[in-house]
């Protein structure tokens, strides 16, 4: 990138240059009219890009602004970050600056790039793996104690990411955190229970949430970290595919007693209010949530179920709820698309459930929020929501049920402002990709709306008082 430094020009010379330039720009549509000027004659400051607050939580909206730019000129805002695994993710959007030489992502419209329209957080949920990346990536933070460091830049013209000729006008760095200051993270290996506990700052005691993910296994902490940052003690529970759990990592080797212990662990904790513990589950975590509330009989204050089944196809190995391997039990319900990608949706089709696993859903007696992504390709979300709703209605408990249903949203409805993975790598041996579903903009909107409603629901049911 070269910069030509010219001596100051008179207005006349600029005008004639513009005429030439307009002719040139009709050949090169990427360049705007007078917009080649970096520090225009009306300004005494170089362009500035700001993101405020510069250090924010992952679920916080921030305001991204460009200032001291020439008016009515094309600019591109870019973002990039490195995942914990070292993969580069990036996004960009095309704007035209306002008459006052500003661009404000909270109010202005993108006319091209990773997203369109007015999307204040589009640079974050619109992130994609950089060209040349490994296939089937999904952005998930493993280390929640460090932030994502996002490098943003403001480029001249409407360009795509890092074109060689693009002129960088300004840069900014912003940090996105899963843990608010003062949130404490504790590894829990107690009474056989494997998980990570997050405690909010302050004296407590706090209401709490037990947090479970799906058959991807392992121990995902980021949702719990955020819940703690919002004032709830939160416990990410491992139940499958974790080295500290008993047995082979390809089967679920824990049963009802395990989940009961996990819930009891929270109730017994001196910084947690025993009568204010709820459960949140996604995917297979929903089945576990319902099993705990309806079958094992833990006294949960509220339940949040995201895109999951009310039953299970997995064969129960023993009465304690231990299951056979996921792949063995479920393979007959897998479907493949023309690319060979697998959809797990039919596994959770209510007609396919193992009747031995049927839960007495009518036993549920606490408020229940059910989140559905209508483009869920990994679970039969709508059908299961219907079963749940009908069951509660039939037992006179419709007032307990709240459904949030999002067109265009996929399976992985997670805390907001992180990119959706429409599909991702499921298994390395043999290499398999699975389809989750969801389209970028509606999925992002679903995440934002659902999270806000989830937090309100928790505020009402874990902090508020149902009866005086």
């Amino acid at each position, binding site marked *: 990138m070269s910069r030509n430094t010219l001596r100051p020009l008179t207005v006349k010379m600029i005008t004639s240059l513009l005429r030439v330039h307009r002719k040139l720009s009709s050949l090169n549509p990427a360049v705007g009219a007078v917009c*080649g000027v970096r520090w225009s004659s009306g300004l005494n400051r170089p362009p500035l890009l700001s993101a405020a607050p510069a250090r924010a939580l992952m679920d916080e909206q921030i305001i991204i602004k460009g200032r001291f730019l020439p008016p009515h000129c094309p600019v591109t805002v870019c973002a990039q970050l490195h995942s914990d695994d070292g993969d580069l993710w990036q996004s960009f959007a095309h704007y035209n600056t306002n008459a006052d030489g500003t661009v404000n992502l909270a109010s202005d419209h993108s006319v091209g790039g990773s997203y369109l329209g007015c999307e204040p957080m589009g640079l974050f949920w619109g992130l994609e793996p950089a060209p040349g990346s490994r296939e089937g990536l999904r952005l998930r933070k493993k280390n929640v104690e460090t932030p994502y460091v996002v490098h943003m830049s403001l480029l001249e013209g409407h360009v795509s990411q890092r074109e060689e000729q693009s002129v960088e006008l300004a840069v900014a760095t912003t940090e996105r955190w899963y843990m608010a200051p003062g949130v404490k993270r504790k590894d829990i290996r107690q009474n056989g229970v494997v998980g990570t506990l997050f405690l909010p*700052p302050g004296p407590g005691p706090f209401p709490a949430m037990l947090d479970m993910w799906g058959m991807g296994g392992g121990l995902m902490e980021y949702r719990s970290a955020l819940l703690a940052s919002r004032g709830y003690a939160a416990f990410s529970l491992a139940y499958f595919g974790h080295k500290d759990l008993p047995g082979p990592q390809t089967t679920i080797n824990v049963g009802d007693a395990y989940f009961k212990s996990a819930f009891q662990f929270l109730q017994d904790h001196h910084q947690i209010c*025993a009568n204010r513990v709820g459960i949140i589950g996604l995917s297979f975590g929903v089945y576990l949530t319902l099993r705990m509330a309806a079958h094992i009989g833990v006294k949960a204050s509220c339940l949040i179920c995201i895109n999951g089944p009310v039953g299970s196809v997995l064969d129960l190995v023993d009465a304690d709820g231990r299951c056979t391997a996921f792949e063995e039990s479920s393979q007959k319900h897998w479907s493949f698309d023309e690319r060979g990608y697998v959809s797990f949706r039919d596994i959770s089709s209510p007609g396919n459930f193992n009747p031995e696993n049927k839960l007495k859903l009518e036993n549920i007696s606490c408020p229940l929020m059910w989140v559905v992504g209508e483009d869920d390709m990994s679970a039969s979300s709508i059908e299961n929501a219907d079963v749940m709703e009908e069951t509660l209605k039939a037992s006179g408990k419709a007032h307990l049920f709240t459904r949030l249903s999002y067109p265009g949203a996929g399976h992985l409805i997670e805390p907001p402002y992180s990119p959706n993975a429409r599909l991702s790598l499921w298994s390395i041996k043999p290499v398999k990709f699975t389809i989750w579903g969801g389209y970028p903009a509606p999925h992002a909107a679903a995440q934002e709306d659902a999270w806000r409603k989830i937090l309100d629901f928790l505020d009402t049911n874990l902090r508020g008082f149902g009866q005086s």
Partner: protein
Amino acid sequence: MLEPAGSNQSAQMRCVRMDKKKHCVKLSVQPSRALMDEKFIVLVQNAPPGFQMTIHSLHHSEDGHSWEAFGHYTADATGTVNVSQDHSVGGTYSGVEPMGLLWSLRPVPGSKPHLRFRKMNVQTPMEVTISVYQGHQTVFVDQVQLASVLVERWYMAPGVRRIPVTESNLTATLFLPPGPGPFPGVLDLWGGGGQLVEYRSALLASHGFASLALDYLTPKITLKTGKMVENDYFETAYKFLQQHPQVSGSRIAMMGLSFGTTMTLKMAVYSEVMKLSCAVCISGSHIQPVNATVEEIFIMFDTKSEKTRISEENEVIWHDVVLPVPTDPGMKADVGRLQCPLLLIVGEDDQNWAAPESAQDIKEMMEQAGNSHLLTLLSYANTGHLIEPPYTPHTRASRFKPVGSNELLVVLWGGETVAHSRAQEDAWRKTLAFLRENLYSRKNSAVTFTSHL
């Protein structure tokens, strides 16, 4: 009336019962991570209407001391207190003071006297615990909070780089804003206590300036050789900035506080090497023997001078040491020769340096010489010597060991806390504006066109 929320449980949520309703007070601070000079909003919600509460801040400093501040509030009809909008009716500050919980911090009861807050490690944030207590409290040792959050205050914005500099015998730290640059540069000097003090430079870099914090009284070369630096040390620092690939060589400013002002004016007026775009001089003076070495000037500020006064509380007042303002031109930097804009910041209650008197004389000299259009003078009533970036505790007197002395004295800096804190906020904002105006000025840079043309 603090009561448990449920019954027969071991751990109850800490709530307040009033009028047959239970209220669980919610406390939030936005943003929870911010720069040291950024405002925050402290919000209490869900309290009973009319509820009396104390909002309290607590900080454990690097040197092991505890600082606290607090305000007394009453919740409105919606059960809310917003520190940015509501009145504190008592505590360490009163009235509507959005940042009172920071600038009115003071050592907790029982602390050693004469402490000064200074963060020397700028790579970690200042952590402040903000809590809500029931009632209007003044003692917090055995109290239990209703709610509590932790707030981080940073000197370095994300992406700012900290680079220790040791080349050419310099003892310095360079702070660079994120990005390729080039950035305008600032040479940043503190005063007679010496050391390498980084926090102002770190903040300047967070605002887009490449800033070099320079230790010029206790650099390694002086500790090794026993000899104080000479003019060329500052010129070397200037050249380091000028030649740095990420610094705009033609846009460099110099900033000094206290003795740092003496040096800044010396260089700004007399150096043939340094071509400064502007200078900022805080709490200092132009009084110095012309053509003297740094050491000669330093010695001149004889801390045992008979003009030293002692206050009733045994605090050392060095205000009179340079007075009266000399009439001999050989004893003052010839500010009439300045060719760059000068921002002078003085506190009218400065007990350590005759800064206001010097400022007056500087103004007269520049008026006589015809370059007073370059001068901006900010003079703050009831403000002391240590005019620093805002929202940190004001220190009226503290223990101080000037370079070259073995005595740890208690030095009176001056200033009344409320006025001084307001002055810091105003002066910092104006300093940044002054730097931007003079370091981004059009006459110092060409209009550039891109290669698209």
